[in-house]
């Protein structure tokens, strides 16, 4: 932990430890100050009853990040947020850790790991804007709250990065992911209804371009948290596993082996296949997903089952044990604990990087291929005999997996399997879909991932006799003539010989 962020000083982080913790807060505080650079631990008697301690200690330490270590999860959120604001902090970046069990050396080691991870996550908080705040009435409104007008608490909601969003090309992936109908497509833009949003995070991980950001749960924060949870230099517990748990869920039932560490998410449905594989690549012995204690309100149970099934099949094919992905925590998370160097493992487009790194670590054959309905990657086959090279599929592709290029005497369509997220946006726009020009298979194909971009269609093109600009691919013009039929044959020469601009001039009557 000492070498963290070398060359850059870690953000000063105040850690307020409730004195009523079952784990010795003094020992924890001492360890933090010594082992995690830039932390300022404070012990606070009855922290939940004295949220004003937040502004006092943050101001005293000059910290720009805050972690609260509590003995139970119910705390006066509205007042804590107010005091964080007063101290100049963004309350959406305040991390909380609840430490309940306390006896034994295992408990303090576990607490160290959880605390260090919360500090790492707090430091990775990107900051938020007014668009990320959704006010709600506080759960507890007492007389004091009325006097102070502190009856609102704020939840983090996502916002859209218009510079990354490709709704203009017709992409609607986020809309399909939203279970509340909070997103709508209108004239090439995504409209977001904050009132309808119940921040579940599904749109955040569904967007293949990372255009939807919830500052309270970004890929960078999850990466920082998981990396620290798995850092062997923090705490003395081995083996370690990561389990994803729903924020609304109750505590996992049954016995939990001490090596399992939680990553809490707004909804399990936001845990993609890449999120399941990333902890394994980063050194987890195993990874688990705990389904909601009741039925998922966002109906993500089946989606999650599909993802687990995909990961298990894939790991088996790669030569690892399918039990690396689990749904219970009673067994120790024993496993290979690879420590692979994968860039941005929780970010958009991480899946191919993770797959290739895992395949290399396992020595999997290059031709490994898995067809699975939950495959997060797709393979597009183009029927060259039917495709006319019009390029509409490439325009609709949100990730750039399909690219249409004009060059020399012709046109070409290329496909990069590492970018295809099997969203299917290319299919409905294809004018030749009835004739089977495109076929998308939810398939993970290692060979295709390492091969990069390959040309899937080439066609000679017609050039404008007027200005020399490309007109269209010849197969497209031929198909157009076929569709128009002999009744319009007088137009054919004009279509072939001129670009749209010159065509208008050529078609107009000469004076």
């Amino acid at each position: 932990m000492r070498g963290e962020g070398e060359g850059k000083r870690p953000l000063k982080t105040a850690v307020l430890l409730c004195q009523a913790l079952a784990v010795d807060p003094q020992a924890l505080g001492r360890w933090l100050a010594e082992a995690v650079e830039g932390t300022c631990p404070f012990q606070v008697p009855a922290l939940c009853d004295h949220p004003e301690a937040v502004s006092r200690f943050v101001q005293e330490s000059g910290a720009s990040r805050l972690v609260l270590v509590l003995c139970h999860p119910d705390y006066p959120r509205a007042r804590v947020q107010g005091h964080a604001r007063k101290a100049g902090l963004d309350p959406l970046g305040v991390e909380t850790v609840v430490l309940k069990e306390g006896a034994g050396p295992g408990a303090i080691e576990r607490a160290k790991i959880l605390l260090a991870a919360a500090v790492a996550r707090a430091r990775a908080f990107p900051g938020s804007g007014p668009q990320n705040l959704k006010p709600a009435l506080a759960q507890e409104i007492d007389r004091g709250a009325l006097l102070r007008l502190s009856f609102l608490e704020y939840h983090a909601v996502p916002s859209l990065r218009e510079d990354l969003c490709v709704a203009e090309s017709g992409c609607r992936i986020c809309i399909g992911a939203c279970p509340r109908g909070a997103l709508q497509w209108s004239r090439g833009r995504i409209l977001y209804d904050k009132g309808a949003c119940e921040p579940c995070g599904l749109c955040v991980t569904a967007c293949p371009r990372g255009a939807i950001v919830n500052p309270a749960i970004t890929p960078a924060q999850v990466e920082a948290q998981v990396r620290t949870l798995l850092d062997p230099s923090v705490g003395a517990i081995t083996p370690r596993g990561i389990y994803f748990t729903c924020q609304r869920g109750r505590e996992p039932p049954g016995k939990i082996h001490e090596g399992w560490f939680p990553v809490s998410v707004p909804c399990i449905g936001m845990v993609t296949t890449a999120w399941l594989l990333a902890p394994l690549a980063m050194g987890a012995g195993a990874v688990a997903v705990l389904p909601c204690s009741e039925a998922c309100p966002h109906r993500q149970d089946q989606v999650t089952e599909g993802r687990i099934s995909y990961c298990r099949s894939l790991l088996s094919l790669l030569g690892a044990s399918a039990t690396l992905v689990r749904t219970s925590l009673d067994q120790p998370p024993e496993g290979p604990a690879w420590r692979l160097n994968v860039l941005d493992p929780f970010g958009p487009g991480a899946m191919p990087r993770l797959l290739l790194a895992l395949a290399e670590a396992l020595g999997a054959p290059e031709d490994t291929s898995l067809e699975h309905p939950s495959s997060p990657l797709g393979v597009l086959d183009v029927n060259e005999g039917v495709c006319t090279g019009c390029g509409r599929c490439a325009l609709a592709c949100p990730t750039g997996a399909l690219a249409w290029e004009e060059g020399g005497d012709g046109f070409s369509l290329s496909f990069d399997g590492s970018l295809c997220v099997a969203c299917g946006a290319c299919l409905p726009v294809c004018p030749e879909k009835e004739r089977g020009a495109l076929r998308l298979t939810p398939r993970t194909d290692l060979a295709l991932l390492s091969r990069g971009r390959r040309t899937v269609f080439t066609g000679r093109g017609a050039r404008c006799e007027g200005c020399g600009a490309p007109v269209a691919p010849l197969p497209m013009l031929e198909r157009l003539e076929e569709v128009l039929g002999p009744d319009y044959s007088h137009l054919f020469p004009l279509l072939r010989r001129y670009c749209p601009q010159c065509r208008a001039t050529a078609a107009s009557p000469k004076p």
Partner: protein
Amino acid sequence: MRPTASPGSPPVLPLPLLGDLARLRQGTYRLLADVFLYPTPEHLAALGATARSLAEEEGIWASFGFFVPWRRLVDALCMARAQGSAEGEYALLFLVNPAAPPYESFYRDPQGLGRGHLLAQLARAYAEAGLAPSPSLGEPPDFLVMELEFMAFLCGQEARAWERGDHEKGVESLTRQRRFLQAHLGMWFPLFARRLREKAPEGLYRLAAEAASAFLHHDLDLLRLLVAEVGHER
């Protein structure tokens, strides 16, 4: 646990709190409107005095999500007169050949084709509340200050309704505020603030735009929440 509102039941939030909240919002709108008026030394001195008294009530303001940019503005207002740069800034940004014109029609109707319709719409909204733009101000109805002042007026109306215990009028006023904010300030202020950020990298008006932007964002969300909770619109 907080009780849940249901149709026909009294509001979850007590009326005095709703009244206080409306007064607080009224004051905020009024201050923001004042900030965007021409900053004569006397005006700046008055703004500074208001800001200093607001700074003393920091605990209350910190309860709201817009507090951080709001405090930056309050701090800047406390020092604005001493710094003496506000008049020059104001002239560059909002007066002759303005960098960021503070008028709704500039942003919502850049071609100017529907300006008359927009101005008539605003005048009608003011008239429905029994108001008319003051000729002494010499500004059209889409002037930023006028729209902010109108919101302050509606908040004042709302506060009086809660203070009288008139639930129906209170809800009516909340709904009217929400409608006006959604149809006008909510539509163009973000564009104005963005332009101001581009043209004025620092200074009092940059801070004012940030604070107003955060406050208006917050107010739209708050009105949605209040109309749902108090007006039982679910």
